[in-house]
């Protein structure tokens, strides 16, 4: 009996001491919960929904740090505080979910029935065409528009990447890609429309509810938090 207890204690101590120390980046990473939109007048998110809809995807930006926050309600945004879009406030933790942020279009999974169908991600700094956007899982590029790239993953999900610089794209329609493969550089390409330097990332999948199947944009923030933690650990 004594031996068993000693072994258990030893195993416990060993597990504790072998825990990998957090890196500086891991320690610095902070995020507000899913569905909590900032500022509070920017819309109503799915508070309390912590389900990871797209488990084990890779983070869509090649390297950390990157920042998830609002382009519209952030500093220098259309409804944001006065200041430049390159303000330091836009490039710091904590992350804020912006899925379901106020938008005029229909989104069945948003509490108001309308809202932003994806999340916006900024790079480490405000520099244009500096940060690589990558494939979040193995798949095939199904379509490339003026400012969009569509990746159909092996899971059947469709990942849509918007605003990359079209001249720096490294993929073609029909090309098979591997998880983590570079797709292009983050930019502010939105056709003739103005936008900030960021990646808009959204994910569509088919959900069957009581036998009825429909493609919907899924809440993706929690999956990205999960992916980012792996990226910080060096295991993207």
């Amino acid at each position, binding site marked *: 009996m004594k031996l068993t207890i000693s072994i258990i204690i030893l195993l416990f101590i060993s597990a504790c001491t072998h825990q990998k120390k957090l890196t500086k980046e891991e320690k610095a990473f902070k995020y507000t919960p899913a569905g909590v939109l900032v500022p509070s007048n920017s819309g109503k998110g799915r508070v309390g929904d912590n389900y990871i809809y797209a488990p084990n995807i890779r983070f869509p930006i090649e390297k950390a740090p990157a920042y998830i926050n609002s382009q519209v309600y952030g500093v220098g945004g259309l409804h944001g505080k006065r200041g430049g879009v390159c303000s330091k406030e836009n490039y710091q933790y904590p992350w804020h979910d912006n899925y379901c942020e106020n938008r005029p279009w*229909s989104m069945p999974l948003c509490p108001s029935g309308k809202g932003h169908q994806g999340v916006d991600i900024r790079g480490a700094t405000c520099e244009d065409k500096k940060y690589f956007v990558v494939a979040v899982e193995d798949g095939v590029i*199904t379509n490339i528009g*003026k400012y969009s790239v569509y990746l159909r993953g092996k899971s059947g999900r469709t990942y849509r990447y918007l605003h990359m610089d079209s001249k720096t794209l490294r993929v073609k*329609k029909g090309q098979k890609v591997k998880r983590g493969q570079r797709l292009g550089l983050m930019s502010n390409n939105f*056709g003739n429309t103005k936008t900030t330097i960021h990646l808009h990332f959204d994910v569509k*999948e*088919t959900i069957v509810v009581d036998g009825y199947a429909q493609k919907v944009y899924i809440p993706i923030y929690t999956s990205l938090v999960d992916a980012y933690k792996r990226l910080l650990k060096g295991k993207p």
Partner: protein
Amino acid sequence: MRLKITIFFICLNFLYANGGLLKVDWSKIDTNQQKTRVLPKVLKNGIKNVTLPVYMPRYYIYERNISIVSDANFYAITVELDRATLMISGDRTYQEKVISKSTKLKTKIESITDKFIKAEGIISVDFHRNGVNYSLSLECDAPDIDPRCTDDRFLKKIYNGLVLIGGKR
């Protein structure tokens, strides 16, 4: 030991695997529509193994700038128009299955079918036909000034002109 742990997690993964294939309802499909059509090679080859009804905008079947990406359960056809990209895709796979206690979620999800929206400058419609899902979208190079993207009339016309061009039972 490591192998045992791996096997355990693989089994666990299967238990929670949620995805699958939707059942195509072929009963209401008029296959005569497709028999009369002679398709360009790119489409003919691209859809030969697709196991769901393949719809395509009638006006663009013989367009030169067509490309297709497909597998047995999915297809995506892209038509490069002048300063715009038109895309239609069909998909038999699903990733989540939810049994909801209230009909609220189902009603919410049903409410978007056949609804045209303009999001991120792209006009699109998702629709459910013959048991499977389709998406049709139009992305203009100048989404704010191109009349094809400033309202949904252009895409509605294309949507109303979709024809069946193939699909293997």
